[in-house]
């Protein structure tokens, strides 16, 4: 899937043409294309074939009519939406802050964002268990300060899943938004100021519309990746928060119903593609 980020630089068609003659761009894209065909399109087609094994659509019928799986799909979309909203609220100011500070500070800021991105999701998930547990850091501190008698149920519920997933996905929102923000022409903001707009007006009618493509790209990325989350809900949800990936895993590993698992996967894929298509048609809000 492609997330349409605004190009950082003007296209360098000249280099491609010189390297590969007339078919340059195609030749240069070939390795990536072969890679995608073999490792993505191929397996997806296999899943598709598996899902209609037996020549009927019974597996799909079950996937989209059975209340159990509809509930799980709904829950999955709901969690992905909450995580996306949380990423926007937390990530937008951080991205803006990064455009205003010195180069050195920005470099440190980026390190703080990128290092967690390169740390295993499992490790970060376990870290939240240590923090949020009944005997975890927060509960122990609150108890030591005499604020609570019994531990608060911070872990194994929806909020803990949202916290863990947002932590994992936040960098994927900040980076696209930042790349748009740095290229916003500051003169426009100054012009708006000169024409008498208030701070709120400048933000709502000039700055936010200009950065909207980044919000859309980052938000779409976070939402789509969140739809497929598996390990974080499994561990932080205490088995009570069940997302569609957990159900697919259960079908493959426990119930051995690969046909139905394939159908569920295809439905998830279609939903993802639909969201991607819809997001590329959304217009920037008019200022």
């Amino acid at each position, binding site marked *: 899937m492609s997330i349409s980020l605004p190009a950082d630089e003007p296209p360098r068609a000249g280099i491609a043409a010189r390297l590969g003659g007339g078919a340059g761009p195609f030749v240069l894209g070939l390795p990536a294309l072969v890679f995608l065909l073999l490792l993505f399109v191929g397996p997806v087609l296999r899943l598709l074939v598996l899902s209609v094994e037996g020549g009927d659509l019974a597996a799909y019928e079950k996937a989209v009519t059975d209340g*159990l799986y509809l*509930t*799980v799909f709904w829950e999955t979309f709901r969690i992905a939406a909450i995580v996306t909203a949380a990423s926007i609220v937390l990530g937008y100011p951080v991205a803006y802050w990064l455009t205003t500070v010195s180069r050195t500070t920005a470099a440190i800021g980026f390190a703080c964002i990128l290092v967690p991105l390169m740390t295993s999701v499992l490790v970060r998930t376990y870290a939240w*268990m240590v923090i949020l*547990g*009944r*005997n*975890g850091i927060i509960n122990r501190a609150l108890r030591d300060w005499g604020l609570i008698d019994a531990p608060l*149920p911070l*872990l*194994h519920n929806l909020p803990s899943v949202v916290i863990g997933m947002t932590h994992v996905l936040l960098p994927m929102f900040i980076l696209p938004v930042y790349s748009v923000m740095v290229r916003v022409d500051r003169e426009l903001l100054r012009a708006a100021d000169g024409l008498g707009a208030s701070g709120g007006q400048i933000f709502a009618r000039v700055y936010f519309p200009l950065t909207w493509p980044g919000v859309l790209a980052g938000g779409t990325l976070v939402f789509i990746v969140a739809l497929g989350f598996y390990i974080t809900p*499994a561990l932080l949800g*205490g*088995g*009570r928060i*069940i997302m569609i990936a957990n*159900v697919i895993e*259960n079908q*493959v*590993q*426990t*119930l*051995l*119903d*690969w046909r139905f698992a394939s159908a569920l996967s295809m439905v998830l894929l279609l939903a993802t593609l639909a969201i991607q298509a819809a997001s590329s048609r959304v217009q920037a809000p008019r200022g």
Partner: protein
Amino acid sequence: MTGTTPTRLALALAGLIAALAPGASAQEPPKPRQIVVNVAGGDTLAATRRIFFAEYEKRYGIRVVDSSPTNFAKLRAMVESGNIEWTVTEIGGEDAVRGQRMNLFEPIDRTVVPMDELPSPARDRKVTLARGVYSTVLAYRKDAFKPGAYPTGWKDFWDVKGFPGPRSMRNRAIDNLEFALIADGVPVDKLYPLDVDRAFKKLDEIKPHVAVWWSTGQQPAQLLIDREVVMTTGWNGRFYKMQREEAGVDVAWPGAMVKVGTFGVVKGTANAYWGQKLLAVFLEPKLQAAYAEAVGYPGTNPKGWEFIDKAAFKYFPTSPDNLPYVGWTNDEWWADNGAAVEERFSRWLLAR
């Protein structure tokens, strides 16, 4: 002279064996350099390597490469694609039944594997060998209760007033249904066929008190250590070390559900014969006893108990101390009904 008959017979037999023996070894398939054996991971893998694989490698000069964890889906894919990586694989009880029905295993060669040493029904198995047993048990933190007033079974697990505190159970139906029925008063030897409706009704009672529905084997012990729960279900080997070291966690054996841990030679493997030889090593009582001492999962060969200290019997689900109080999981029932019941359980878990 009637007295000579047995002697003659013995001589004839000896001759027969002598005649057959060189032939038998000549018919032995060529030794591979190595075989791949797939086992459950963690402590059991380390102990299996140290105790069984080491003996096999020493005896036959064939290296054993291990892989883990057990994965029925992968086994099925392997046999279906013909790309067989494992020679032998460990497999859970009801999966062994399913694997047998799907024809994923070579039959056991009883001339190589001395199955007759085992008690029935382990003796009567056709395609997978029951090496040992494992058990899903009730484990608890001692400091969560008054000394001496510890939970003794599933009735206490369900008794949230007498034994307060959050609980944990597995996120699957297997075992949980049995535990619910035992808590509801069904004797361990009268569980099957399971009264599924009655079990779910009883599970409704405990559901609000289950903080975590665990999915992987190491979670229950960790949940107890982290004080996330005061009692939990879990596989006995995961608590065995804490029990033996008196580390504040103990197990209530009555109503524990015991299952056989089995191994099969994967259908179509090139080294089936040498896989059978490994199964034979798995049955040796002394090795089985060493394995039980190491990880808490006793073997199926009854002679194994001769090599274990009587004082340690209380740590093992099928020792003479605990055997009368445990139940045996009916793998056939689960192979027949598992899919439908597991789906109902998922539904039940999601319902608010």
